[in-house]
């Protein structure tokens, strides 16, 4: 039972962090950033030296954790900000559909760039191996990593909340997410806020990459995309642009996946995702605006 709870929480953590990364950018820019998953993949491969061999040549992956974590976070934030400056900045005045297509295209550029450097073969790596030992809690044996995943996610969520509520930059970001042009008329710098959102979102992508890499031990170019889909769904269910909603929906999706994995009859289990998506459709039928409707219906300028 406890095991199920922890499975649900740790899977939900990944979805919640992913959804948050998408919701942050949507909040300030009305951009659904489909390149987010490829930023995750990029962060994962930042652990390796470029090589098309099947054998992974570990580079940053062998750094001690206190260097590894900041390095990967910086990679994520850096790439994400770079995407903003090189690509999305030119689409600020474009309509949301155009921006969405641009983000798709950018995602493919990043993915093929990784393919070129690393080939499409999944590579195995043992990242932070000391975390895979089990620990005993209330009579249940749980992987230490799962515990750390959940704790890390909680710390990130609390940290982000404090950042948004207590700092000047956080205040400016919340104001801009609700009404971008009004915030600008009050002197809030558009570029700074948007770059800040991209940096945060990229750092969240990096956190996912680290957790996922440590959990699975395999690095696969497709992995970003699979989390991304669920994260994207969580963002929509949560109410596009609502950060709290994104997190809540991320955890709900994680829970739904894990519970169905356990409850469904054995024969139906391979179709688990079909049931999860079915539930998603039901939620959207009853609450098309999402669980928590976002404020800020005003258009950006």
């Amino acid at each position: 039972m406890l095991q199920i709870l922890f499975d649900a929480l740790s899977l939900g953590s990944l979805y919640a962090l992913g959804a948050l990364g998408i919701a942050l950018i949507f909040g300030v820019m009305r951009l659904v950033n489909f390149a987010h998953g490829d930023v995750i993949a990029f962060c994962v491969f930042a652990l390796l030296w470029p090589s098309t061999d099947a054998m992974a040549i570990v580079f940053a992956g062998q750094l001690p954790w206190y260097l590894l974590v900041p390095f990967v976070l910086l990679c994520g934030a850096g790439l994400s900000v770079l995407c903003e400056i090189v690509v999305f900045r030119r689409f600020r005045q474009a309509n949301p559909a155009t921006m969405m297509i641009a983000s798709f295209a950018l995602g493919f550029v990043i993915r093929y760039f990784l393919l070129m450097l690393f080939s499409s073969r999944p590579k195995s790596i043992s990242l932070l191996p000391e975390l895979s030992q089990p620990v005993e809690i209330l009579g249940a044996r749980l992987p230490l990593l799962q515990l750390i995943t959940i704790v890390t996610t909680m710390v990130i969520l609390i940290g982000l909340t404090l950042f948004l509520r207590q700092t000047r930059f956080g205040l400016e970001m919340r104001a801009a997410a609700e009404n971008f042009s009004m915030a600008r008329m009050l002197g809030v710098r558009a570029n700074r806020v948007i770059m800040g959102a991209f940096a945060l979102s990229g750092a969240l992508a990096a956190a996912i990459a680290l957790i996922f890499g440590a959990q699975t031990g395999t690095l696969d170019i497709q992995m970003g995309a699979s989390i991304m889909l669920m994260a994207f769904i969580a963002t929509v269910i949560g109410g596009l642009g609502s950060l709290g909603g994104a997190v809540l929906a991320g955890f709900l999706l994680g829970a739904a996946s894990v519970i169905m994995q356990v409850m469904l009859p054995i024969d139906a289990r391979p179709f688990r995702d079909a049931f999860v998506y079915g539930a998603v459709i039901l939620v959207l039928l009853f609450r098309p605006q999402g669980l928590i409707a976002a404020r800020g219906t005003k258009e950006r300028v």
Partner: protein
Amino acid sequence: MSLLALSDITIRYSRLTAVRNVSFSMDEGEILFITGPNGAGKSSLLRAIAGVTPVAGGRIDLAGHEITGQAPENIARLGFSMVPEGRDVFGSLTTEENLLVGTGMHARERGWRSRAADELEAVYATFPMLKERRHGQAGLLSGGQQQMLVIGRALMTNPRLVAIDEPSLGLAPNINDQVYERLIALRAQRQLTLLIVEQSSARAMMVGGRMILMRGGQIVLDGDARTLGNGEAIQAAYFGYEDN
């Protein structure tokens, strides 16, 4: 030199020309009402000054700088503060957070924090009810309270020129009177330059000052509000000589 000068401003929304060759200027300390019927182009003009609506032609100068095509955040830094039509309260933020959003642009200057705190107290002194609701969600304030909040918010940036688009919109007459009372007191207190948009010219005649009347994207009258207010000229201008 004038504080604000518009020359030959034209504003277009794809094929519709909302403002056509409008020129006027304002001196420091002046109060100017822009009035005119719905669709006259008043809000477009204000948004163009603020930098959120692009102009198709002409030039705008503020405090000795050309601001045509500048970003809104830079125009705000030159001392322009705007209360848009519909007020645009940040509904999910608290009252106090709304007031504080605009203080960040002075964050590079020395002592900005204490100045922001003083400014906050000054706004609370003018609008005590905002202080009572300081930690409440701004979206839950009444229309009149929200109007006071956005005026306070506009003052927090320590502006030289405050533009307010239809402060009366959706307010009961007695609340509206209160809003204007405070505005006039504030103007005397701080030597504010005020640019106020209203549909009706009644308020301008009551308050006095200069009045520009717009119709169909153009200026049709420009003069002293009280002398313009002698009925017929303004009626004719408002409804148009050539209509029907």
